[in-house]
Protein backbone atom coordinates (compact mmCIF):
# COMPACT_ATOMS: atom_id res chain seq x y z
CA UNK A 1 0.00 0.00 0.00
CA UNK A 2 1.28 3.42 -0.99
CA UNK A 3 0.54 4.80 2.47
CA UNK A 4 2.76 2.22 4.13
CA UNK A 5 5.63 1.88 1.72
CA UNK A 6 5.71 5.12 -0.25
CA UNK A 7 5.73 3.03 -3.44
CA UNK A 8 2.67 3.09 -5.75
CA UNK A 9 1.06 -0.31 -6.32
CA UNK A 10 0.56 -1.86 -9.74
CA UNK A 11 -3.12 -0.99 -9.42
CA UNK A 12 -2.23 2.69 -8.82
CA UNK A 13 0.12 2.70 -11.80
CA UNK A 14 -2.26 0.93 -14.16
CA UNK A 15 -4.60 3.93 -13.87
CA UNK A 16 -1.89 6.27 -15.18
CA UNK A 17 -1.21 4.43 -18.43
CA UNK A 18 -2.98 5.34 -21.67
CA UNK A 19 -4.27 2.82 -24.22
CA UNK A 20 -1.84 0.63 -26.12
CA UNK A 21 -2.76 2.61 -29.22
CA UNK A 22 -1.84 5.94 -27.62
CA UNK A 23 1.41 4.56 -26.26
CA UNK A 24 2.47 3.61 -29.78
CA UNK A 25 1.78 7.14 -31.07
CA UNK A 26 4.50 9.00 -29.17
CA UNK A 27 5.54 10.36 -25.77
CA UNK A 28 2.94 10.74 -23.02
CA UNK A 29 2.94 12.15 -19.49
CA UNK A 30 2.47 9.83 -16.54
CA UNK A 31 1.09 11.50 -13.42
CA UNK A 32 2.11 9.31 -10.47
CA UNK A 33 -0.05 11.38 -8.16
CA UNK A 34 -2.38 9.18 -6.13
CA UNK A 35 -3.13 11.07 -2.96
CA UNK A 36 -5.57 13.93 -2.52
CA UNK A 37 -3.46 16.87 -1.36
CA UNK A 38 -4.09 20.59 -1.94
CA UNK A 39 -2.07 21.12 -5.13
CA UNK A 40 -2.76 22.25 -8.71
CA UNK A 41 0.26 23.84 -10.50
CA UNK A 42 0.21 21.13 -13.20
CA UNK A 43 -2.97 22.65 -14.59
CA UNK A 44 -1.46 26.07 -15.29
CA UNK A 45 1.89 24.63 -16.37
CA UNK A 46 0.56 22.52 -19.27
CA UNK A 47 0.64 24.59 -22.44
CA UNK A 48 -1.30 21.98 -24.42
CA UNK A 49 -4.35 22.15 -22.16
CA UNK A 50 -3.97 18.46 -21.41
CA UNK A 51 -4.54 18.88 -17.66
CA UNK A 52 -8.18 19.61 -16.92
CA UNK A 53 -9.05 22.52 -14.61
CA UNK A 54 -9.38 21.59 -10.95
CA UNK A 55 -12.83 21.96 -9.39
CA UNK A 56 -11.18 21.46 -6.00
CA UNK A 57 -7.41 21.68 -5.57
CA UNK A 58 -7.51 18.53 -3.46
CA UNK A 59 -8.64 16.45 -6.42
CA UNK A 60 -6.22 14.28 -8.39
CA UNK A 61 -5.16 15.70 -11.75
CA UNK A 62 -7.22 14.57 -14.74
CA UNK A 63 -5.16 14.36 -17.90
CA UNK A 64 -6.31 14.13 -21.52
CA UNK A 65 -3.42 12.28 -23.11
CA UNK A 66 -4.74 12.93 -26.62
CA UNK A 67 -3.79 16.57 -26.05
CA UNK A 68 -0.43 15.69 -24.48
CA UNK A 69 2.64 16.01 -26.71
CA UNK A 70 5.15 14.80 -24.13
CA UNK A 71 6.95 18.13 -23.89
CA UNK A 72 7.81 17.59 -20.21
CA UNK A 73 6.80 21.01 -18.86
CA UNK A 74 4.66 19.22 -16.25
CA UNK A 75 7.69 17.18 -15.18
CA UNK A 76 9.50 20.38 -14.19
CA UNK A 77 6.42 22.02 -12.69
CA UNK A 78 5.18 19.35 -10.27
CA UNK A 79 6.18 20.25 -6.69
CA UNK A 80 6.04 16.57 -5.75
CA UNK A 81 8.35 15.54 -8.62
CA UNK A 82 5.67 12.98 -9.41
CA UNK A 83 5.25 13.44 -13.18
CA UNK A 84 7.27 11.67 -15.88
CA UNK A 85 7.14 11.52 -19.66
CA UNK A 86 7.49 8.10 -21.26
CA UNK A 87 8.31 7.68 -24.96
CA UNK A 88 8.04 4.08 -26.05
CA UNK A 89 8.63 5.12 -29.67
CA UNK A 90 12.11 6.58 -29.08
CA UNK A 91 13.79 3.81 -31.07
CA UNK A 92 13.28 0.13 -31.88
CA UNK A 93 14.95 -1.13 -28.75
CA UNK A 94 15.09 1.92 -26.47
CA UNK A 95 12.50 3.92 -24.57
CA UNK A 96 13.06 7.48 -23.36
CA UNK A 97 11.90 8.77 -20.00
CA UNK A 98 11.97 12.44 -18.99
CA UNK A 99 12.39 12.68 -15.23
CA UNK A 100 13.09 15.45 -12.69
CA UNK A 101 16.74 15.58 -11.60
CA UNK A 102 17.66 17.99 -8.79
CA UNK A 103 21.18 16.90 -7.99
CA UNK A 104 24.67 18.06 -8.85
CA UNK A 105 26.77 17.39 -10.78
CA UNK A 106 24.45 17.16 -13.80
CA UNK A 107 25.13 14.32 -16.19
CA UNK A 108 26.74 15.17 -19.53
CA UNK A 109 24.91 14.37 -22.76
CA UNK A 110 25.69 10.79 -23.69
CA UNK A 111 26.81 9.87 -20.17
CA UNK A 112 26.02 6.38 -18.94
CA UNK A 113 23.90 6.31 -15.79
CA UNK A 114 22.42 3.70 -13.49
CA UNK A 115 18.63 3.53 -13.75
CA UNK A 116 16.44 2.85 -10.72
CA UNK A 117 12.88 1.74 -10.20
CA UNK A 118 10.40 3.00 -7.65
CA UNK A 119 11.84 0.72 -4.96
CA UNK A 120 15.28 2.23 -5.45
CA UNK A 121 16.61 -0.93 -7.13
CA UNK A 122 18.93 -0.60 -10.10
CA UNK A 123 17.21 -2.23 -13.06
CA UNK A 124 19.44 -1.30 -15.98
CA UNK A 125 21.97 1.11 -17.40
CA UNK A 126 20.88 4.08 -19.42
CA UNK A 127 22.26 6.95 -21.47
CA UNK A 128 21.48 10.61 -20.82
CA UNK A 129 20.23 12.19 -24.05
CA UNK A 130 19.96 15.70 -22.67
CA UNK A 131 19.27 17.67 -19.50
CA UNK A 132 16.77 20.50 -19.89
CA UNK A 133 17.52 23.18 -17.35
CA UNK A 134 15.26 26.06 -16.51
CA UNK A 135 16.27 29.70 -16.48
CA UNK A 136 17.87 29.49 -13.04
CA UNK A 137 18.44 27.21 -10.07
CA UNK A 138 14.85 27.73 -8.92
CA UNK A 139 13.65 25.61 -11.85
CA UNK A 140 13.68 21.81 -11.78
CA UNK A 141 16.02 20.33 -14.40
CA UNK A 142 14.57 17.48 -16.45
CA UNK A 143 16.85 14.65 -17.56
CA UNK A 144 16.02 12.71 -20.75
CA UNK A 145 17.27 9.14 -20.36
CA UNK A 146 17.29 6.35 -22.94
CA UNK A 147 17.46 2.70 -21.86
CA UNK A 148 16.22 -0.76 -22.93
CA UNK A 149 12.52 -0.48 -23.77
CA UNK A 150 11.31 -3.27 -21.47
CA UNK A 151 12.00 -1.04 -18.45
CA UNK A 152 9.96 1.95 -19.63
CA UNK A 153 7.37 1.52 -16.87
CA UNK A 154 10.03 1.07 -14.17
CA UNK A 155 12.79 3.64 -14.60
CA UNK A 156 12.02 6.69 -12.49
CA UNK A 157 15.42 7.80 -11.11
CA UNK A 158 19.03 7.86 -12.26
CA UNK A 159 22.39 8.09 -10.59
CA UNK A 160 25.73 9.02 -12.10
CA UNK A 161 28.27 6.26 -12.27
CA UNK A 162 31.32 8.51 -11.97
CA UNK A 163 33.23 8.41 -8.71
CA UNK A 164 31.24 5.39 -7.57
CA UNK A 165 33.20 3.10 -5.27
Amino acid at each position, binding site marked *: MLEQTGVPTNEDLARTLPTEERRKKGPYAVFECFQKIPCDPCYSACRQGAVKPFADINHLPEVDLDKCNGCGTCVAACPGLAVFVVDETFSDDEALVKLPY*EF*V*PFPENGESVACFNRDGLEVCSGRVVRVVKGKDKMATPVAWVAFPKEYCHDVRHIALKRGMA
Partner: protein
Amino acid sequence: MRIEQHPILTFPERKKVTIYFEGRPIEAREGEPIASALHAAGIRVLRWSTEMNRPRGFFCAIGNCSSCLMEVDGVPNVRVCVEKVRDGMVVKQQKGKGVPPAVGGDEG
Protein backbone atom coordinates in the same frame (compact mmCIF):
# COMPACT_ATOMS: atom_id res chain seq x y z
CA MET B 1 32.59 19.31 5.62
CA ARG B 2 31.42 22.40 3.77
CA ILE B 3 29.05 22.01 0.85
CA GLU B 4 30.90 22.98 -2.32
CA GLN B 5 28.12 22.73 -4.88
CA HIS B 6 24.36 22.48 -4.43
CA PRO B 7 21.61 21.95 -7.00
CA ILE B 8 19.41 24.76 -5.71
CA LEU B 9 21.36 26.96 -3.34
CA THR B 10 24.27 29.22 -4.11
CA PHE B 11 26.50 29.84 -1.12
CA PRO B 12 28.23 33.21 -1.49
CA GLU B 13 32.00 33.54 -1.01
CA ARG B 14 32.67 34.80 2.48
CA LYS B 15 35.78 36.22 4.09
CA LYS B 16 37.76 33.70 6.14
CA VAL B 17 38.38 34.47 9.80
CA THR B 18 40.15 32.51 12.53
CA ILE B 19 38.64 31.46 15.84
CA TYR B 20 40.41 29.44 18.54
CA PHE B 21 38.85 26.27 19.94
CA GLU B 22 40.65 24.92 23.04
CA GLY B 23 43.73 26.74 21.76
CA ARG B 24 43.49 25.32 18.22
CA PRO B 25 43.03 27.75 15.33
CA ILE B 26 39.91 26.93 13.33
CA GLU B 27 39.08 28.44 9.95
CA ALA B 28 35.65 30.08 9.97
CA ARG B 29 33.61 32.16 7.56
CA GLU B 30 32.57 35.69 8.43
CA GLY B 31 28.92 35.87 9.44
CA GLU B 32 28.46 32.24 10.41
CA PRO B 33 27.59 31.03 13.91
CA ILE B 34 30.37 29.48 15.99
CA ALA B 35 28.64 26.07 15.98
CA SER B 36 28.67 26.03 12.19
CA ALA B 37 32.41 26.74 12.02
CA LEU B 38 33.14 24.09 14.62
CA HIS B 39 30.93 21.54 12.87
CA ALA B 40 32.62 22.23 9.55
CA ALA B 41 35.92 21.49 11.29
CA GLY B 42 34.55 18.19 12.62
CA ILE B 43 34.06 19.41 16.18
CA ARG B 44 30.76 18.23 17.61
CA VAL B 45 31.29 18.00 21.38
CA LEU B 46 30.62 21.52 22.64
CA ARG B 47 30.31 21.08 26.37
CA TRP B 48 30.04 18.63 29.26
CA SER B 49 26.86 18.37 31.29
CA THR B 50 26.69 19.56 34.87
CA GLU B 51 25.62 16.50 36.84
CA MET B 52 26.84 13.51 34.85
CA ASN B 53 29.61 15.00 32.72
CA ARG B 54 27.99 13.82 29.48
CA PRO B 55 29.15 15.17 26.12
CA ARG B 56 26.71 17.59 24.52
CA GLY B 57 26.44 19.19 21.09
CA PHE B 58 23.78 21.43 19.62
CA PHE B 59 20.20 20.28 19.06
CA CYS B 60 17.90 22.93 17.63
CA ALA B 61 20.53 25.16 15.95
CA ILE B 62 18.21 28.14 16.25
CA GLY B 63 18.70 29.43 19.81
CA ASN B 64 15.78 27.71 21.57
CA CYS B 65 17.12 24.72 23.47
CA SER B 66 20.32 25.63 25.41
CA SER B 67 22.19 22.49 24.37
CA CYS B 68 25.09 24.32 22.73
CA LEU B 69 26.29 26.58 25.55
CA MET B 70 30.03 27.30 25.45
CA GLU B 71 32.46 29.78 26.94
CA VAL B 72 33.28 32.49 24.40
CA ASP B 73 35.97 35.12 25.11
CA GLY B 74 35.67 34.30 28.80
CA VAL B 75 31.86 34.58 28.92
CA PRO B 76 29.99 31.33 29.67
CA ASN B 77 26.56 30.13 28.54
CA VAL B 78 26.86 31.55 25.05
CA ARG B 79 24.49 29.93 22.56
CA VAL B 80 27.03 29.14 19.88
CA CYS B 81 24.40 28.09 17.36
CA VAL B 82 23.35 31.73 17.02
CA GLU B 83 26.44 33.66 18.17
CA LYS B 84 28.44 34.74 15.15
CA VAL B 85 32.18 34.26 14.82
CA ARG B 86 34.61 37.18 15.13
CA ASP B 87 38.24 37.06 14.09
CA GLY B 88 40.38 36.01 17.07
CA MET B 89 37.47 34.74 19.16
CA VAL B 90 38.45 32.28 21.90
CA VAL B 91 35.99 29.41 22.31
CA LYS B 92 36.17 26.77 25.03
CA GLN B 93 34.09 23.74 25.89
CA GLN B 94 32.04 24.59 28.94
CA LYS B 95 32.10 22.20 31.85
CA GLY B 96 28.97 22.44 33.94
CA LYS B 97 27.18 25.69 34.56
CA GLY B 98 29.99 28.11 33.80
CA VAL B 99 31.31 30.97 35.89
CA PRO B 100 30.56 34.52 34.77
CA PRO B 101 33.59 36.79 34.47
CA ALA B 102 34.25 39.07 37.43
CA VAL B 103 32.61 42.46 37.00
CA GLY B 104 34.00 45.78 38.23
CA GLY B 105 37.39 46.66 39.72
CA ASP B 106 37.26 44.86 43.05
CA GLU B 107 38.37 41.27 43.36
CA GLY B 108 36.44 40.09 46.43
